[in-house]
């Protein structure tokens, strides 16, 4: 897959940028509301996966969503689009 540089020092001096996970850091810190999945309701339709602007939802073996809270910004699109309301948003603890 893509090379991931651990630090600036690993990079040659160049006008090229390298593909990096978390180019803006752990964007999960931006989150105000946290999506939570009720797996007993989920029908494995994968709509939440395809609509996530942050690629922060992965598909588990059975196609149910696995949310990566390190990067999920808490936009709530997944909860809004889930046809069976299996995803709900909860305010993060202070």
């Amino acid at each position, binding site marked *: 897959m893509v090379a991931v540089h651990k630090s600036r020092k690993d990079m040659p001096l160049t006008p090229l940028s390298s593909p990096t996970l978390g180019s803006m850091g752990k964007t999960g810190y931006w989150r105000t509301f946290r999506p939570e999945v009720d797996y007993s309701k989920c029908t494995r339709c994968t709509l939440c996966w*395809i609509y996530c602007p942050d*690629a922060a939802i992965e598909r588990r073996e059975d*196609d149910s969503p696995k949310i990566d809270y390190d990067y999920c910004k*808490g936009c*709530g*699109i997944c909860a809004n689009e889930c046809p069976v309301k299996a995803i709900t948003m909860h305010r993060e603890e202070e």
Partner: protein
Amino acid sequence: MVTIKELPQEEYLLKGHAACAGCGPSIALRLLFKALGKNVILVVPACCTSIIQGPYPYTSIGVPLQNILFESTAAAASGIVAALQQKKLEGVTVVGWAGDGGTVDIGIQALSGAAERETDFIYICYDNEAYGNTGMQRSGATPYGAWTTTTPTGKRERKKNMPFIMAAHRIPYVATACPSYPIDFVNKLKKAKEIRGTKYIHILAPCPTGWRYTTEKTVELGKLAVQTGLWALYEIEYGKFKLNSPSDRLVDKAKRKPVKEYLALQGRFRNLTEEDIAKIQKWVDEDWERYRKLASNYLL
């Protein structure tokens, strides 16, 4: 015809990128990679995507991408296409990916030139209907009545019809799309990839930051734009106009939702009067009269 589950799980828009929460263009960008795979070279001018890429020396994009001046997307893409041909490198899709400002305003001459030269590439305008990167100034794609920082009381002019301008170049493929309809967009990209010549796809991509709505409504608003008929999903293939699902079921006015349902969810339309809304509704109905005629075998 693919289904959502069949789309590849590899991601080339990497997590932890710089887009605002709920960014519509980011959904479209993810879908682009799902449709075209990794053998693409993107050309991106100054726009929100050049921010989403992340700060040097990092990038959130997992494929080769060239950043270029605001006005030069199609010119730079033309150069890359020529270089690939010279080097006899096949199987690489060159994609110009620019915002509405970079397309319908400042980039239009480079794009028009590339189209006239029949340059073999896909050009995508992701339209968030304002200059997002610089804080939401009006563009030629901003719709009538919308607030932007340079139209504080609402824009008084209408949105440019860029897909039709591109169709007037007699290019082989023009299409509209919206990330709320992922399969439609993916199919159009896959089709465009197989056609030689200039392909133009215009995506309406809702932007919570500029359109003033809460982040979870991005996909919902894209659907409403289509269901009200304000944004129609269509293709113009070798001059032949065709409405795509679900727009093809909306020719009858009774099937379309009132535009008010779409406008009322967005803060940027807060100052619209009832007359403004009636005007917008009338324009939409007129557009659909044109779509109906075009769809019944009229060549553009």
